[in-house]
């Protein structure tokens, strides 16, 4: 565990898809790390980006803003962005922010990779 931050982000590739898997709560102190990870991934122009949220038990508006920014980036660069494996808490937060219909949500990672 690195001092002060308990968000860890794994990046892997599966075929032409890049999968970003943050692990930890995403708040104002941690969202810059997620923002940078996604921006770096987009820069490499993969065919598709999947954000696996199974390890994210909590997200605040700075986390939501990070994902909205990623979506705008993905549209501009025509790289589809999919979110998968949302925990019930994060799903409920997305719904309250009315962003659940803005993003492409998949139940599991397999569905996101085939979708």
């Amino acid at each position: 565990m690195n001092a002060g931050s308990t968000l860890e982000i794994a990046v892997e590739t599966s075929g032409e898809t890049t999968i970003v898997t943050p692990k930890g709560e995403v708040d104002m102190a941690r969202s810059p790390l997620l923002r940078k990870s996604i921006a770096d991934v987009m820069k490499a122009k993969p065919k598709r980006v999947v954000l696996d949220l199974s390890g994210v038990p909590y997200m605040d508006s700075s986390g939501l803003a990070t994902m909205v920014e990623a979506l705008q980036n993905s549209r501009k660069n025509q790289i589809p962005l999919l979110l998968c494996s949302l925990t019930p808490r994060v799903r409920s937060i997305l719904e309250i922010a009315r962003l659940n219909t803005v993003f492409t949500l998949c139940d599991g990672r397999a569905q996101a990779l085939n979708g």
Partner: protein
Amino acid sequence: MVQGPRARPAPSGLTVQSVFHEPEVHMQILSRPELLAPVRAMTNAMAARVGLNDIDACHLALALDEALTNIIRHGYDSDRNGRIWIEMGPLALTQGLRIEIKDRARSVNPDELQGRDLEDIRPGGLGMHLMRTLVDRFEHANRPDGGMQIVLEKSSTPASVSNAS
């Protein structure tokens, strides 16, 4: 010897203590993003203590987080040594938690606090909308002595309702 930040008495509030709630915890934190996680952990456990379910607890903790984030960013302009006072305690008439937040940051015209239109999909401006939506009672006021005061209250929703989605 350098003097570290000392605790100062909380500014007096606009509301008086009442029979409707009882503060059990008073905190003073510095305006630092790294302290959001510890405060959130405390809030979740306080919410469980009064009987809120996991999702309700998470929503109350999120509302508090948004209030603190705004105070840190907009109120104190990311100065890491601003003081924020937080008070928590059970509501007396329902299973629920009341949170009161005070700062000594620059106060702002409530009209500026609208947040953005939700149809306008862009980062930012979500915080105010979330705060208003996540709790049962949301009050936001400028104190006569300067600084702001925010009240958040959330009561237990029946399991059948909160598990519906």
